[in-house]
Each structure stands twice: as C-alpha cells, then as structure tokens.
C-alpha cells in the first residue's frame, strides 16, 4: 500500500509548488487589494425613476466619500475586492434610514442593469421623507450569504427623497437638485448644539444664532460656501440658565442663507462696506422647555438652595417673558452661611458609614465590634439534654430488663420553663388563658426596675460610703 510518506517523497515538489501558487495568486492579492474605496453614482431620471451607475473604479487614495446623509453620490464604505454589483435595496420612511422604518425593498444577485431606469414608486405609500439604500455585493468569501458571496460589511449608498404624494417623488427637493435649501434642522438641549444640513451655492453665507427676550441675539456664527455643495454644520447655543427645571421659557434658534455681494472690486473709490444682501432662504425653531442648572457657586452647591442669590427673573412663573422679582442680599448671605457651617445630614451619614466600614472593623476596635455583633446576631441554640438508649447486648444482669429502653431528660426545661410557662389559668368567664410567667411578669419587671433605681441612687448619693472604700473614692 502506498503510504502518505511515500506520496510526499514522490510528489513533494509538486505539492510545494501548488501551495506556493495558491498563496501567491489567490490569497496574496486578496490582502493586497483590501480596504479600497469604490465609487458609484445615482442619477434621477424623472419623478419616478433612478439610474444607478457603478463605474467599478477602485481608488485607495480616496480619503472618504463623506457621510451618507450628505449625499455626495459616492459609496462611503470600503470593500474587499473590485467585484461590485448592487445586491439589493431598501426603502425607508423617516428622517434616517434605519431598520425600524424599513417599508420595502428587495434582495438578490442583481445585475447592474437591473437598477437602470428603475421605478421605485411601488415602495412608498404617502407623502413624506424617504431614503433608498442600495447595498453592494463584494465577494470576499466571508459573507454570511455564500450563495451570492457578499461581504458581511456590505457597503451601501443612501439617497434621501421626498414624496409629494403616494406616486411621485419631489424633484425640487431631490438630493440632486442644486437649489439652495435646508434639508434638515435638528438640535439637542443636552449637547447644546444645533445641526443644519442642506445645499448652498458658492459665495452664499449661512448664519445661525439664538434669540431670547432676555439676552437678545447671541451665539451668532456663520460660514461662507467656497464651492456649491451640500453642507452639514453644527452650531453651539447657550440656552438660558435657570434655577428651576420646570421653567418654561421661549428660546428661538434662527438661521438664514444670504447672498452677499460686495460690489465691483475694480473700483478703488467704491465704499468697501457697500454690499447687496439678498436673503435666499431661512429657517427657525422654538425651544419652549429648555433649561439647565445654574453652575455651582464656587463649589458651595451641596443640596442647599441658593434661590435667594439669583437675580430672580421670575424663575417660577410660566410667562414667556422675564420679570425682575428683586434680590435680597441678607437672605443670600444667610443661605451661604448655612451652607458653610451646617453639614448636610446625608454627608454626616456617609462619614459614619465610612468609619463603620473602615475603622470599626479593624483592630483594636474591631474586637469590640465583633463582640457586639456576636451578642446581637447570634440565634438561640437548644439547651443540652440527656438522651440514652440501653443496649440489649449488655452483659449486665439488668440487660434483659432495660435493653432497648430510652432515657430522655431535659433538666433545664423541667427546672425552669415547665413550671413557669406550663402552669396556666383556667380562662373561665371568657378571660384569656395565661401562664404563670405572663401573670407575674408585670410585678417582676417593677421589682427589677426598683432595684435598678435604688442601686443607681445609692451609687450617685453614696449613702453607704465608707470613706476610701467608696467606689467614688476609687474613681
């Protein structure tokens, strides 16, 4: 029989060459061409149709195609190989493409031509904002769907669209429209940033500010577009500082895009400040319930209210304007004085807990703590009893008589409890049945209490003091 060793000896060179070719021609390029960018385009044919174009162009020098929501017609994800075909698409309804708002779509190993002049109108049902996501196939051999071999990190391109009704896309709001416009205006009172997205023409200027009836216009910031393109800017806004979290004040966030023309620059005598400002578009939003806590006053804010120290612009009313309510320096100082010298109960409790956990548990105080713990937590145990069964195999003459007999004796029970708790009254005439201890206990307690009081008075007054023998003399 031909053994493996013999095969290796006979065909060794062939095996080595085969392995070399496999590694060199198959595995090597896969790693060499990994993580490149692939470019693709989507174009709108009409109100109902789109074309998808994949130019199968690999360029590892692409930095980034930008975020998907910026819609710059570029696949913003990396792939493993240059095999790129649309694998499927999904239609989402909402402000963002998310699996939770998927309303339709299809998957399969589509050819590129499938998506040429493709009609998507069957996938939306009413007016609103939609996204279409095209998912690419890139065969890296590791995809979960081995039938089509797409990568687990399927790159995709997302296109935001607006539907005017249930059958037509809004071409004027199409991402491919070059009209100056806002496409999104969101804000967060947590981060205190507003985010504006849209399209601007070269030379146009976008302004942002917040305006309140108290502080007027604040946080104004602007950008000037150097090229006609989609924009995505974040602007900081302060809001209003309030002492109350239930305050209800009006804060407006405003933005506008203007074309600013500074006039002919060839005229050296023209006024450089002469400019023609043309408003292109504007947007705004009102925040009615935004507030944040006052910053701590030099670290003094520890659960105490410093309401008296605020300038009292009607902090508790619900009017949309701010009314000055007055300021009392005396009360303000009193508040601060209390905070300076009176520790909060919670903090004191915290220190005691700290001591218990870290000091009381360590020697030598720890021995006292442990002793106290034993006294307070140890449960009652049964008292010893005498229990014996005589053996039948005993050589004693009494074995035939006592063999197998059992002696059981509870000395403590018989000496104490039996008599005091088992002797009971008859409970006649509807009176409750009581045992001896329950009847005697009140008198017993009084006697003990009297003895205790007499002992204490004796000690304090030293009635029977005998000079140096008195305990007071020994203290």
């Amino acid at each position, binding site marked *: 029989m031909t053994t493996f060793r013999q095969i290796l000896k006979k065909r060794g060179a062939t095996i080595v060459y085969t392995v070399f070719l496999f590694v060199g021609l198959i595995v090597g390029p896969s790693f060499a061409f990994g993580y490149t960018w692939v470019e693709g385009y989507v174009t709108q044919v009409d109100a109902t149709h789109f074309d998808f174009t994949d130019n199968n162009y690999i360029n590892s020098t692409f930095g980034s195609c930008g975020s998907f929501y910026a819609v710059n017609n570029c696949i913003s994800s990396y792939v493993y190989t240059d095999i790129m075909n649309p694998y499927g698409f999904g239609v989402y309804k909402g402000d963002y493409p998310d699996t939770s708002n998927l309303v339709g779509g299809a998957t399969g190993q589509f050819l590129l031509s499938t998506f040429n002049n493709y009609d998507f109108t069957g996938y939306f049902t009413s007016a609103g904002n939609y996204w279409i996501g095209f998912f690419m196939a890139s065969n890296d051999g590791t995809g979960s769907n081995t039938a089509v071999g797409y990568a687990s990190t399927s790159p995709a391109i997302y296109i935001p669209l607006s539907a005017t009704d249930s059958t037509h896309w809004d071409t004027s709001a199409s991402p491919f429209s070059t009209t100056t416009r806002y496409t999104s205006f969101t804000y967060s009172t947590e981060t205190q940033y507003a985010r504006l997205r849209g399209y601007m023409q070269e030379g146009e200027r976008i302004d942002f500010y917040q305006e309140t009836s108290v502080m007027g216009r604040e946080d104004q910031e602007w950008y000037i577009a150097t090229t006609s393109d989609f924009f995505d800017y974040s602007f900081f806004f302060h809001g209003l500082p309030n002492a109350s979290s239930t305050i209800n004040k009006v804060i407006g966030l405003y933005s506008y895009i203007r074309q600013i023309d500074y006039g002919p620059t060839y005229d050296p005598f023209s006024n450089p400040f002469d400019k023609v400002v043309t408003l292109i578009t504007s947007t705004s939003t009102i925040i009615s319930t935004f507030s944040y806590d006052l910053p701590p006053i030099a670290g003094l804010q520890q659960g105490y209210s410093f309401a008296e120290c605020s300038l009292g612009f009607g902090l508790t009313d619900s009017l949309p304007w701010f009314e000055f309510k007055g300021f009392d320096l005396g009360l303000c100082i009193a508040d601060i004085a209390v*905070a300076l010298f009176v*520790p909060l109960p919670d*903090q004191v409790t915290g*220190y005691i807990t700290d001591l218990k956990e870290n000091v009381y*548990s360590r020697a030598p105080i720890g021995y006292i703590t442990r002793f106290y713990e034993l006294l307070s937590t140890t449960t*009652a*145990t049964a008292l010893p009893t005498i229990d014996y069964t005589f053996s039948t195999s005993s050589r004693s003459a009494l074995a035939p008589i006592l063999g197998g007999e059992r002696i059981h004796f509870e000395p403590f029970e018989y000496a104490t409890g039996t008599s005091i*708790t088992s002797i009971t009254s008859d409970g006649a005439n509807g009176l409750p049945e009581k045992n001896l201890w329950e009847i005697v206990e009140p008198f017993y307690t009084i006697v003990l209490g009297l003895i205790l009081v007499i*002992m204490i008075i004796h000690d304090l007054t030293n009635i029977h003091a005998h000079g140096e023998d008195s305990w007071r003399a020994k203290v």
Partner: protein
Amino acid sequence: MIVDKILQLLVDILVAFAGLFDLVTILPWGLDNIVMTGVGLFRGFANIFPPINAIFVTFMIYFGFRLGIMLFGVVPIFGKLVNPHKKA
C-alpha cells in the same frame, strides 16, 4: 461646608490610620466560637425561662451606668464632681 470639610479630613485620617491594623472578622484564640456558643445557649435558656432575660437587661443597664460614670470621672473637670476626695 467648613464643618463638613473638617469632618471629612478627620474621617480620612482615621481611615488611613486604621488601614495599618488588621481587619477583624473573628475573635482570636477561639473566643469567637466560645462567645457564639455561650450567647446561643443563653438565648436558648432565656426562651424557656423568660425572667433571666429581664435580669440580664437590668444588669446591662446598670453596667452601662457604671461605665458612664467611670468615663465621666476620667475627665479632669468632671472628676471632682464624681469624687470630691480626688486629688488634683
């Protein structure tokens, strides 16, 4: 806040100092077992003979009183009140 910071400082010092000593989980020399057994039996005895419990409580009150007086007498100023014959 000032008092709070002083308390915090004292606690921190005590905690740091206590860290030098061993953590006590049981009493040494087998005392833990002895005390536990003794207390258990006493409680068992008190269950069947209730008066012993009242005597014990009374004794503990008196013992606490004596301990308090002794501690009170250790303080130099109060020592004279407790013991008029005590020499300064």
